[in-house]
């Protein structure tokens, strides 16, 4: 009898123990608040992107109300801050591509080669020395690189040794070369990551089949790491397009429609910086050009970044 009476009582007691006490309830509420606050912080970054889009779109749309897109995209003279103003964006586009091409020609092959060396050839001790040195190079501020490009690379190297014509005080060549050096560490580190993700069994297999080390690198490691290498290359393009300070210092601020790397050029990014220095009055057409060119630049780099992320995700080889 008593056991059957006792059992429900102790069961009740056990149940009430399981029911949340006041302090536990309070703690749960605290947890909920914390989660909400952290979630709000995370959404903040989305807010930033939306703000960028808004900041660019409205003035850019107003700009195209004043300047026809046809004039913008096909005009060959860029003089938005002069009178009479001219809004042909082509010189900026060719300038951007000239600097970008020179930078990528330096950064991609050299970066790839340096990555091969670090990943396949260097001893662990040499790696332990070289990696931090590359990190130092990656940490040099762009204004320092710009100074170096203008007052060392241009007079001491490009003006002396460029075989194809004269090099001016400001040149796309010096700017591009130094932008290339600036993105080199990023290229090396991303390419090396891709290479070290290739499993050793592939290396051993290649060597066992009597491949030389070079053949192993170019015929086994390179294809296996290709997706990572391509993604790194695309990012290198994006970084080269967006660089402002180096180009502004070393390539000057004269928008010219030219393919001659010995001349000074203006890129989209360096125009924005240049126009910003002039402190354009809000609402003027000059002020709005900053946003129109900025929108072009943002879209270009946005597409490149997305493409790079896609390549990594789509073609990543999962080894074990």
């Amino acid at each position: 009898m008593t056991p059957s009476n006792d059992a429900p009582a102790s069961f009740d007691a056990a149940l009430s123990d399981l029911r949340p006490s006041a302090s536990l309830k309070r703690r749960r509420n605290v947890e909920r608040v914390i989660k909400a606050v952290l979630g709000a912080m995370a959404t903040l970054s989305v807010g930033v992107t939306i703000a960028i889009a808004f900041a660019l779109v409205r003035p850019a749309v107003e700009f195209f109300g004043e300047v026809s897109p046809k004039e913008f995209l096909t005009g060959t003279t860029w003089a938005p801050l002069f009178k009479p103003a001219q809004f042909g964006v082509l010189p900026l586009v060719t300038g951007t591509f000239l600097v970008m091409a020179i930078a990528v020609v330096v950064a991609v092959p050299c970066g790839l080669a340096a990555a091969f060396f670090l990943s396949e050839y260097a001893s662990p001790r040499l790696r332990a020395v070289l990696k931090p040195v590359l990190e130092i190079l990656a940490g040099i501020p762009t204004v320092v690189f710009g100074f170096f490009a203008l007052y060392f690379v241009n007079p001491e190297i490009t003006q002396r040794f460029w075989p194809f014509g004269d090099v001016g005080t400001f040149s796309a060549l010096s700017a591009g070369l130094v932008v290339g050096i600036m993105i080199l560490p990023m290229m090396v580190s991303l390419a090396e990551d891709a290479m070290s993700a290739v499993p050793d069994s592939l290396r051993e297999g290649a060597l066992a089949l009597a491949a030389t080390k070079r053949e192993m690198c170019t015929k086994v490691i390179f294809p296996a790491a290709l997706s990572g290498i391509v993604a790194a290359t695309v990012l290198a393009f994006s970084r080269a397009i967006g660089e402002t300070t180096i180009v502004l210092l070393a390539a000057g601020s004269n928008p010219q429609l030219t393919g001659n790397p010995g001349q000074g050029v203006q890129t989209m990014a360096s125009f924005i910086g240049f126009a910003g220095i002039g402190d354009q009055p809000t609402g003027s057409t000059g002020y709005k050009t900053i946003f129109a060119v900025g929108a072009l630049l943002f879209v270009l780099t946005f597409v490149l970044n997305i493409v790079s992320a896609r390549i990594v995700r789509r073609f990543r080889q999962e080894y074990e």
Partner: protein
Amino acid sequence: MSATTSTDAVSHTPGEALATARTSGRRRLFDTAFRSLLIASVGLALLTLFALLIDTFLTGQPRLNTDLVNNMPSSRPARAGIQSAIFGSLWCVGLSGLVSLPIGVGTAIYLEEYAPRGKWYVRLIELNIQNLAGVPSIVFGILGLAFIARSPLKWGFTVGSGAMVLTILVLPIVIISSREALRAVPPSLRDGSLALGATQWQTIWHQMLPSAVPGIATGSILAVSRALGESAPLLLLGALTFVTFNPTGLDSGYTVLPLLIFKYASDAKAEFHTVAAAAIIVLLVMLLILNTTAIIVRNRFQRRAR
């Protein structure tokens, strides 16, 4: 076999001997050439770094004295100093560090510990952060010009708006490195804490964060040094002016070290280029101090954790 390898008496094992035999002279030549090419590429990076450091030091060395740090910017090269720029940089970078650290770590905690995996909005946030990290810095300057300096915030060209733009700029770096640091904490720590009845936040606060501190600290210091060297976005935020006073608060006008270097470097007078080079040395020393701190912090915490 021995006949074909007689020229190389160094082969030790049958396998090596076979490989040597198969490797014709041309292939070996290509291999040597390839190897030299790789070394040359690494050499180019090293050489550039050394050339940059040595050239800057030699150019700036005549003006590297206490006057440089004690004097304000001036249009007379003999008197030109960098004091207001150092203080401007300390203000802007310090503030952006103070703001971006909690927000960045908070975002990282949310994404690593709370966010439901695979939900569309979580992927949106992740993709968005990845993308923000790749946006050219000048675009953040445009954002600052449109929204912070002019309407709607109308903060003008002040320390506050400069710091806010730098905060937005380095936030992705803080988030990404904090996430990596949190991910590196062994899951057993979290599981054990939860199994002992700790709530999720107690687990994060008492177990996850302390073990992630070295990684978070390293990433944040890297972010701060990025902010210290950044010049492009602040071009649009009025930092490129002669400021002959140190900032006194958020609403004060300002200049920062990278932009004062820019200003001196682009001046027509060659004497200013010497001042620019000397200022670059000061900037590089500040960065060196930051990075050394990062390494020390990381090492000390790692030792304690073991």
